[in-house]
């Protein structure tokens, strides 16, 4: 099995099981409070890490290039309450322009 298919099958099976766990198996019993607090923080921690790594790294090097300008522009757009698709378009356009000028 190729790497891509292995990822698709494993992630798919795990996600189906995670989503079904509450409604199908646990019958609505709540998680222990400590576990609930930790799982609630997984998304912010991982999403922030993804943004940082995707913007500031190239392989194993830390770099600051046109992507940083694009995501900075996206941050401004978010603060101005722009819709998500506009935020993404602003980031891509800024990066493409800075890269073309550099």
């Amino acid at each position: 099995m190729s790497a891509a298919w292995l990822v698709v099958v494993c992630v798919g099976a795990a996600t189906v099981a995670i989503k079904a766990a509450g409604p199908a198996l646990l019958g609505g019993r709540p998680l222990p409070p400590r576990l609930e607090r930790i799982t609630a923080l997984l998304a912010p921690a991982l999403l922030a890490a993804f943004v940082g790594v995707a913007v500031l790294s190239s392989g194993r090097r830390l770099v600051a290039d046109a992507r940083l300008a694009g995501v900075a522009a996206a941050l401004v757009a978010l603060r101005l309450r722009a819709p998500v698709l506009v935020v993404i378009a602003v980031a891509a356009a800024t990066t493409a322009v800075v890269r073309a000028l550099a």
Partner: protein
Amino acid sequence: MSRPPRDGGQAPTLADGARRIAPIGIAAAGFGISFGILAGSAGMPLPATVVMSATTFAGSAQFAAASVLADAGPVAVAIVTAVLLNLRYLPIGLSAAPAFEGGALRRLVEAQLVVDESWALAHVGGGRYDRRLIIGGGLVLYAAWVGGTAVGALGAGWLGDPGRLGLDAAFPALFLALLWGQGIGRDRRALAAALLGLGLALALVPFTPPGVPLAAAALASLIGWRR
């Protein structure tokens, strides 16, 4: 986003869920196209890309897995990172569990339509969720996500270098928007977890294979250990 009426009016129908989610459905189709393009540029075959959207049906985890593969990161890291991102569906699923009815198999299938947006839409107040809003909204999002993925994966071939169009900044911008939706503006603990995760990941970049910094950032969630 519109909210269902809370004044004890008529119970919402599947069509209500579909109608209320429609504007988000358009955005979901756009994300699906983006995912198809990223997965294609990461070298994922078209059928694998579409099957992933149809079974995993969770944008951030799919983007994360595809971007690890795009960086030629280890397969195990792509899987672990995506599964960690989806662990949030454990508490989300528990919160919506009382809304579902019928046998275990029916609950298992219907629970797959719980995603961030359909879950938020179906909240009718006081921690209660409406099953028809989850299913009506979830079906629209599912069609938009899987259809958009197929379009993006088909288009990835002739789009060429994603860097030329600045698409390599589009995905972090999308994740920034998703992060914004996690309440880091008002929840200090969520902000602390985000900053700690960011710091951990960047500190590991020079020393580990691609993807490992991402998975290790999950450790930042342990600050929730203490109240």
